[in-house]
């Protein structure tokens, strides 16, 4: 703490607070110079984040997808499930989640090392960390839900088709029986 000048006969709270806050700034700025640890050196010279970004495969546009679906309509829903590039979306999502996970691990590691180095942890940093994890978890859960929804839709379509087929069969059999 730097010496804080106080006029005791005429106390000016705003002025004292300014000095305290200035001390704060000095403290924050002085931290890296105080004890440059090997980790710190690594942090300052490192080529930032060296995590390879996921490769994004070209997606089938929704228009093309619609045309494909139209063309495939007469065929069985099973073929549809096999041909449709659902796995591609899934693969891409997994890639992107993996990338996010690695980024998160990297950020957490840096944050932890900073905490160890400075011996103190501002509560806001804790909050940022928690919020980061929270956002990540939300993204993961939403993605899972989206994939599940897509799967359910496809299953529903298959069941519908099966149902139609069975109804047609039922009608045909009824006709045969009553004849």
């Amino acid at each position: 703490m730097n010496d804080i000048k106080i006029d005791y006969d005429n106390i000016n709270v705003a002025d004292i607070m300014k000095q305290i806050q200035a001390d704060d700034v000095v403290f924050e700025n002085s931290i890296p110079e105080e004890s440059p640890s090997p980790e710190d050196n690594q942090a300052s010279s490192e080529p930032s984040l060296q995590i390879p970004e996921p490769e994004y495969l070209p997606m089938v546009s929704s228009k093309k997808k619609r045309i494909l679906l139209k063309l495939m309509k007469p065929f069985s829903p099973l073929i549809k499930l096999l041909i449709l590039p659902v796995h591609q979306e899934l693969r891409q999502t997994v890639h992107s989640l993996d990338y996010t996970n690695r980024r998160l691990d990297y950020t957490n590691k840096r944050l932890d090392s900073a905490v160890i180095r400075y011996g103190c942890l501002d509560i806001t940093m804790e909050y940022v960390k928690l919020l980061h994890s929270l956002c990540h978890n939300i993204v993961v859960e939403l993605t899972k839900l989206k994939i599940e929804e897509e799967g359910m839709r496809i299953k529903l379509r298959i069941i519908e088709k099966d149902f139609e087929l069975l109804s047609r069969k039922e009608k045909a059999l009824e006709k045969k029986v009553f004849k």
Partner: protein
Amino acid sequence: MKVAFVVQRYGLEISGGAELHCRWVTEHMKKYWDVEVLTTRALDYISWENHYSGSDVLVNDIRVRRFSVAKPRDPERFGKIQNFVFENEHSEEDEIMWLKEEGPFSPDLIDYIKGHVDDYNYFIFFSYRYYHSYWGIQAVPHKSILVPTAEHDPVVNLKIFKELFRKPRGIVFNSLEEKKMINTVSGNENIPAEVVGVGAEVPEEVFSKQFCQKYGIKDNYVIYIGRIDINKGCIELFDFFIRYKKETSSNIQLVLVGSTVLKIPIHPDIIYLGFLSEEEKFSALDKALLLLMPSFYESLSMVTNEAWALGKPVLANARCEVLKGQCERSSAGLYYKNYREFKEALMLFLGSSRLRSSMGKNGRKYFQDNYTWGTIEKKYLSLLKRLEKE
């Protein structure tokens, strides 16, 4: 002059908040006016269940008319409506519904005001945010004076209150910050207003030595007095204090006084004394090195005034504009908005008895100039005189 004080709850059992503020003002203004209190039969501020049986009683020689609460608050329903109103786009009707759910829902009280307008010269409403003030002021705007006791929380931004703040004949604010906030929200600068606050009565003699002996406390402590609650910033205070103890070799202790709704951390230097009598509270405060006031929301902190009355400096939360403003105006307290500032300010206080005594002296002067009952009474009288002239 006959004046009715209208408040959500009234009784000797109710300590702290706008209710105690109202009781003190009523008891002090009794010598100038013919005063009466109009209130509900509720004691519990969460449910507003009817508790008091008598509907027309004397409390410290003041006539109190109590009206039934027609429907107690359903906390679950209220919570849902509150979440909807605070987090979504909504209509004025939604806000009116929120107000009704918040309570204390006492249409009898409002009917009484409507039916007895001519019996009173003025109605002084305490706490803008409750049912009684909103509908009471609508019933008698030309005779109403509002003591908003507003804090910087989301309620103040509701549309219905924007209109409400423009309706009364006069407004009595607790602090300059509260006045500024309400003026900004509603643009009601033209309404006659006075920044008054509330006085404090400090016992002439305090028995701090006996107090320390009784509770086995060393005389090297800082104190927090009030409800121990998350909204009062107590969790942050515990966190900061424990970190301060870890980082410094200070032997300072933290004494907590008041009822708690939180689990207090187990720490050898955090001493919880629970709810104390007024006499013991002042004894505890008198022996403390300083008062800690970590609250985020205050329209006026009575305990801060009491600390200043005893010549004790204050370390307050800077995120509460009112506390920050009061510290600056009084030159009797410092403030913090993060741990670093808390640590520096506390170190400064603990390391300099001269600073503590100079700030204590300033606090005592600030209290004498602004918060003695004589000053408070004069301000109420002058506002009513102004209204009479108009």
